């Protein structure tokens, strides 16, 4: 198996791109990544996307986007794992290069969520759950996460205000990210009086519906220096799954797939959680941040929120998260999110994160979660200097 490195990154601003379609956004990100990699073409394109069929009436994204990006002829296909589609596409690109089969792969995560009215987008997102035994009963995807949050608050004696630190941290960091959807800090009071979407989840617990695309170029590490002086090595790539339906979990408040995928990633990189300088976790909802920190070894069960309260997740804390705004404030174009996370880790590892640059950032972890924890994909990236 070959070692794999990232030699190019690209991203569009996350937001409501009414004037740009699904394919336009993807092409913008791909061309930016190819230019960053000083590459004209790659052997294959893997597209991460969840909702193209439901919201844009468009499947078959591999060939379509390859053609529109000027890459007609290359191997191309799309990959779906709900909100983990982006991370899943990166994983497939990694496998293709690591196996020795392909010498260069473009991975693009893209999502176009503002194409339809809100209730249709809500219904499409619910497809991440179990259609026959969850979704038929009328839950939104938000409400499935709210069931987790309510139980977590009940078992740990918490109030919803105890989760505000996650949202405040994300917004503070997004203020310095020109690609973020919400480039402004918020006060805890804004969180506390935010309106309910599905109680106890409020607007400020929840990542926003958004459009966006991000892309990476992967090559074998042995070839990476031909293209760039600052390749970023993928030190680990690991996936684990759990039941799609919440009601089928062994232990509702433990993200077993996040635990297994992080554990496997730490093993591959031969490190422990304490060695990670930056953790781009899947903060689709504040409860997911708390559960992810617990599953990945940063907090005892029920204590994930303490890290937010104590400032441990800030840029100067013990384990910085959502350094460029996270899903909450950079925005969450679902199928693109897993690629954005890795693009942002690469920015930090290259020292290109601007105002939010972490000092001495050498190891960064990105964890992309599909559904309420059914697919969890963890990548660890490392500076190669």
């Amino acid at each position, binding site marked *: 198996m070959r070692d794999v490195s990232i030699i190019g990154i690209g991203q569009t601003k996350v937001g409501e791109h009414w004037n740009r379609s699904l394919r336009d956004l993807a092409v913008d990100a791909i061309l930016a990544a190819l230019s960053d990699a000083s590459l004209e073409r790659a052997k294959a394109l893997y597209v991460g996307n969840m909702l193209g069929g439901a919201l844009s009436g468009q499947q078959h994204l591999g060939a379509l986007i390859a053609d529109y990006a000027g890459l007609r002829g290359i191997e191309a296909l799309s990959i779906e794992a709900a909100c983990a589609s982006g991370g899943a596409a990166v994983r497939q690109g990694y496998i293709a290069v690591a196996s020795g089969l392909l010498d260069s792969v473009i991975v693009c995560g893209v999502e176009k969520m503002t194409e339809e009215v809100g209730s249709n987008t809500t219904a499409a997102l619910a497809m991440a759950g179990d259609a026959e035994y969850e*979704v038929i009963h*009328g839950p939104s995807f938000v409400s499935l996460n709210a*069931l987790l949050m309510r139980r977590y608050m009940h078992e740990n004696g918490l109030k919803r205000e105890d989760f505000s630190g996650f949202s405040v941290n994300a917004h503070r960091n997004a203020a310095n990210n020109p690609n973020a959807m919400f480039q402004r800090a918020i006060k805890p009071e804004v969180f506390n009086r935010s309106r309910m979407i599905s109680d*106890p989840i409020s607007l400020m617990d929840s990542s926003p519906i958004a459009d966006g695309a991000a892309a990476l170029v992967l090559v074998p590490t042995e070839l990476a220096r031909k293209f760039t002086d600052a390749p970023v090595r993928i030190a680990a790539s690991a996936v684990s799954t759990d039941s799609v339906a919440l*009601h089928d979990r062994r232990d509702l408040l433990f993200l077993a797939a996040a635990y297994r995928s992080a554990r496997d990633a730490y093993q591959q990189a031969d490190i422990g959680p304490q060695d990670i300088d930056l953790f781009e976790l899947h903060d689709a909802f504040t409860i997911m941040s708390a559960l992810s920190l617990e599953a990945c070894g940063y907090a005892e069960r029920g204590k994930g929120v303490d890290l937010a309260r104590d400032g441990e997740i800030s840029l100067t804390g013990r384990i910085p998260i959502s350094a460029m705004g996270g899903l909450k404030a950079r925005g969450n174009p679902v199928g693109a999110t897993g690629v954005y996370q890795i693009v942002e880790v690469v920015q930090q590892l290259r020292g290109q994160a601007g105002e939010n640059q972490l000092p001495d950032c050498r190891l960064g972890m990105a964890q992309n979660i599909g559904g309420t924890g059914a697919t969890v994909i963890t990548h660890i990236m490392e500076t190669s200097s």
Partner: protein
Amino acid sequence: MRLSANWRHRRQRLALTGEECKVCGARLFPPRDVCPHCHEPAYEPFEFGGRGEVYSYSTVYQPPAGYEESAPYTMALIKLEEGPIVTAQLTDMDSDEVRIGMPVEMVTRKLREEGEDGLIVYGYKFRPVLQSVSQR
């Protein structure tokens, strides 16, 4: 309009019929033919009693398309007396009355309508346990 899908699930939606694993004894809802506990085949039907308690809940203010008519409504995880947890709506009560641990029972209600020419889908919801006169 998923005609056969709604027909196929009638025993689950209307009678909470799941399965029992003859190898490890686990009671399963929904039915899934392979026991998730011991990974042996599980085909024996098992009818649940329909009683349980609220394990978690959330009131939905922004419903998905097709459910706007009944919003706001309360989604819940119900822990059945026999063990499994099911996802369902609560009914016949106000959302501010719901508490974790509250005893509830299954009833049959309309889940959704699919417009003028579409199906009306019925299935289980849960309501607070009604006390009979003799229990008072």
